[in-house]
Each structure stands twice: as C-alpha cells, then as structure tokens.
C-alpha cells in the first residue's frame, strides 16, 4: 500500500458502563405537545451545536448555503479569508428573509424588499435612501446578526447561543471515535429531504435501537446480526455496532455464507463470490482486505486506521440532538432530523449519502425534496432506498398512534437504552442543567 500516516488514529472500542436510567415510560406528551416543543426550542435547540452542512459545499469566497432549523434560517458563508461565518438570514431593516433555502454564490446579499445590501461578512454594504432615517443608520448595529459557527470532520456546525462552549467540547468523544473515518475526505453521493408527519424525536428514536430490525426490516436478518449489538451511552451521545455480512442468530442461515451475503457483500465489493470458500467468520476480513487493498488505492483513500469490523459493520452513532451516523468505513449515511417550525406532528428528514473519495471531486448531487407518502421509495445513489422506506412507512403511524387514548408513553426495553439516554440528555437541557457538561 502506498499510504502511511505518521499519527495513526484508532476508534476506541472498549465498552462504556451501562447507564442506570430506570424503567419509567417516556411520556408521550414530549412528542405531541406544542408546549413541550416550545420548551425544546427555548432550552435545547437554541443551546446545542447543530450540524448545518458541508464545508465542501462552500469552497470559494461568497459561496453560501442556508440551513433551516425550526423557525430559523441561517446563512453559512465562505469568507474571503477562507474562514466560514454564519449569519441569521434576516434583513435588519424589516426582517425579510434574504435568501431562499438552498445554496449558491453571492458577492453581496441584497434584500428584495427595500434593496438593503450586505457584504458577505454580514456588514452593511448599502442602505437605500439612508438620509431618510433621521435617527441615523448605525452600520455596526445594522449588520447581519452573527451565529456561532465551527467545523469538525468537514462538517459545519452552528450554535444559536453566543455563549456556547466550543464545538469540540460539546462533541465530547465523537471526534476521537470518528476521526479515523476521515469524514473530511468524504464526498456527497446523494442529498434528499423528506417531510414526514411525525415529531422529530419519533424519527430519531426509530433509528436509535436494533430492536426494530426483526419487525421493520425482516428481510435484512439474512445478512445482519441484530442480536449481538454492543450499545454504549456517553455523556450526550451514543453508539451501537451492528454486525453485517453475517446472518442473524434468529435466521436459519446463521453461521452460513448464504447467497445474499455472497451477492450483496462479497460480489458487491468485487470479490469472486462463487470462488469464495471461507466460512461465515471469514467474510468480514475478506471484505476489509478488499477495501484496504483494492478500493482504497482506487479511491485515493487510506483505510489502514480502521479495523476489519469498521470496514464491514454499521458503526451507528447518535450525536445529540438530531444527527444519526451509519458508518460503514468506505461509505456512510448521515441522517438529520429537523423540527418543523411550529407543528410538533411534522418534521424534516435529511438523508446524506457519503463516499470516502478524496481523489477526483464528484459532481454535487442535486438536493431532492419529497413529502412522505405510503408508496414513496426514494432511489438513493449508494443504495438504501428500500430500507429507508421501511422505516419511514412506520413514522406517521407511530405519531398517529401516540395521540391515541390507548397509548400512555414509550415502554422501553434494554435494547432501547439509547432512547432512554437520549431523553435523559434532552431533559437535562429542558431543566437547564446540561450546558456545563461535556459531550
């Protein structure tokens, strides 16, 4: 191999102590009530670091994207210095939005209401008829209001709290665990947003445990182990590791290299499946070797910092409050669960498909938008559309069911401990206790 890093990274794999979080039901009102949604906004969304987008999307000075979170829209702009700055997407004159949701390039931002103009650093460029403001136009008070903005892993993060602690501190264990994957070398394969009739937490929960695999994704048990899934809860965030390329102990093929594993794993990674004579325990190492020795050089990527398991299995991280990582080594899926501006029964599900490909730049995929319907199966570059449809099919039904008098709240088992941990973290924000803690 032609790659060697001087400071090799490795993801900690030791288990964290199991949290003692009790057995109470999670009150359903947390998913349904406008009052709780308001508390979430005031106490949590405006105080946590939020994933906003990708550094690569704003490579040149003046490139920008907007990010919409609850009632807010934020402009994230590459500065002439090369730094990234974030400003509220709001004209300081009468409150008009400056740019529609999306991404683009601007030499300045002009308000389409009264033609006030702002430089890309947020300072005022010009005010239409300034002499008609007898109170004066103090430029420093009229600049676009700044938002805290920091980066990690090629991702841009925002915090609406000017006093927030630094991003790295908030992320806690996450950089140590995920830096070996080199997300800064990943490129977008697909970008989709689906509006769903459920609370944003209904969506976070749906992916935050392995317990749903047998019920929601029974067709995957032929190639995934939903039983031997280590779960770790950290201060704010959590992890589970789901073994892939091996049949579930619930499946009759457990211990066998079945045809699904041959085709969907060995052959997909370019291994001659018909000639493979190894046993079930040999599949993962063969795939990992193929990724390191064949795909890595072809992509210009060094996968030597990742274990065999990290190159095959789903390393699943939840970054509080609303990011889900499914990381497969060479590829990853990132989900962002965004609250609706005013309706706790609705949310926006963002899907980002990533490939670690530091070589040639891939064309930026078009951002596609959908409203969820029962027959929606989004074709995704890099796959996963059918799997995602199985999850999203449940979401509005869970939300509708939670409104029923016949349901009191979430009755959780130990496979669902991450959901309980997530609510514990959320509660610490609701009660104003979380801001001094570390991730």
């Amino acid at each position, binding site marked *: 191999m032609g790659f060697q890093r001087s400071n090799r990274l490795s993801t900690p794999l030791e288990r964290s102590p199991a949290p003692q979080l009790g057995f109470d039901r999670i009150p359903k009102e947390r998913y349904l009530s406008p009052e709780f949604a308001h508390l979430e906004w005031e106490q949590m969304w405006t105080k946590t670091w939020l994933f906003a987008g990708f550094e690569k999307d704003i490579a040149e000075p003046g490139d920008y994207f907007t990010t919409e979170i609850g009632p807010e829209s934020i402009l994230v702009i590459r500065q002439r210095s090369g730094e990234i700055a974030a400003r509220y997407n709001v004209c300081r004159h009468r409150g008009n939005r400056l*740019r*529609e949701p*999306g991404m*683009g*390039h*601007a030499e300045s931002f*002009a308000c*389409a209401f009264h033609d006030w103009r702002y430089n890309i650093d947020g300072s005022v460029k010009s005010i239409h008829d300034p002499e008609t403001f007898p109170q004066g136009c103090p430029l420093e008070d009229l600049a676009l209001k700044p938002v805290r903005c920091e980066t990690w892993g090629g991702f841009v993060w925002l915090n609406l709290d000017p006093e927030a602690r630094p991003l790295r501190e908030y992320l806690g264990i996450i950089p140590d665990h995920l830096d070996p994957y080199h997300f800064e070398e990943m490129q977008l394969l697909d970008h989709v947003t689906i509006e769903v009739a459920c609370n944003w937490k209904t969506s976070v929960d749906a992916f935050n445990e392995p317990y749903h695999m047998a019920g929601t994704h029974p067709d995957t048990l032929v190639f995934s182990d939903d039983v031997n899934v280590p779960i770790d809860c950290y201060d704010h965030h959590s992890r589970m590791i789901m073994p892939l390329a091996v049949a579930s102990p619930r499946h009759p093929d457990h211990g066998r290299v079945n045809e699904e594993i041959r085709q969907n794993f060995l052959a997909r990674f370019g291994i001659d499946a018909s000639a493979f004579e190894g046993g079930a325990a040999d599949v993962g190492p063969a795939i990992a070797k193929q990724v390191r020795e064949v795909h890595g050089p072809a992509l210009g990527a060094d996968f030597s910092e990742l274990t065999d398991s990290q190159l095959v299995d789903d390393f699943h991280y939840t970054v509080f409050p609303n990011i889900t990582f499914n990381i497969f080594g060479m590829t990853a899926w990132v989900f962002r669960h965004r609250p609706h501006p005013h309706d706790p029964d609705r949310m926006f599900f963002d899907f980002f498909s990533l490939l670690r490909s530091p070589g040639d730049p891939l*064309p930026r995929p078009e951002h596609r938008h959908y409203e969820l319907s029962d027959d929606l199966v989004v074709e995704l570059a890099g796959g996963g559309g059918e799997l995602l449809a199985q999850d999203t099919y449940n979401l509005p039904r869970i939300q509708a069911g939670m409104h029923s008098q016949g349901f009191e709240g979430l009755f959780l088992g130990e496979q669902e401990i991450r959901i309980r941990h997530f609510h514990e973290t959320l509660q610490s924000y609701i009660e104003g206790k979380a801001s001094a803690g570390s991730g």
Partner: protein
Amino acid sequence: MAEVEDSQCRVETDEPEPGAMRAVDVDGHEILLCNVGGEIYALRNACSHATTRLEGGQLRGHRLECPLHGAIFDIRSGVPLTPPARKPLEVYPVERVQGRVVIRIPGSPVRTPPA
C-alpha cells in the same frame, strides 16, 4: 455576421468555454450564452425579477443563480426554480454552424455582434 431569415435575427458569435458564460450585447439585445457540457444555451441577460444582468451569477449544471437576490433559473427552459423570480427568462434557439454559435432572436432587426 448576421443574416435575415424569416424576419429573425441570426447572431453569430464565439461560444463560451464549457462551464462558462459569455454576455453578448447586440444593439440592445443583451444575451447570455451558457455552455453546459458542450451544449450551448442562450437566454435574455436580465433576471425576470429585478432585471439584473446574470453573467455574474453562478452556473451549476443547468441552474443559473441571479447574483442579486439568488433566484435560480433552469437555463434549458428559462423557468424560475426559486423565488423571488416568478416569470421565465426568454430563451433563444441556438445552433452551431462552422464553429460559430448562431442565435435566432425572433422578430428582431438584423444586427451584427461586435467582434
């Protein structure tokens, strides 16, 4: 060179590089030529929202963003994809003839573009 053909103006000019745009002004006809993957598109070079010239905007694939307020147009049809623009941009038929781009502007007088 320009020729009359069925009362249309035939404007001949050089084409922009792939991925680039070129503004052409022919006696008041402000035209924007865009080259996307070797295909040439010609549009009226004035945003349908605030009449801003568009060559300072960003071309991503077939999407052209107005530099002033950020409205995005599909250059194949001229259709606005995002507000604040609501009306389509005028688009003109284009063809290549002997290495030159020929733009047809319906109902226009005959003019020759500047060299």
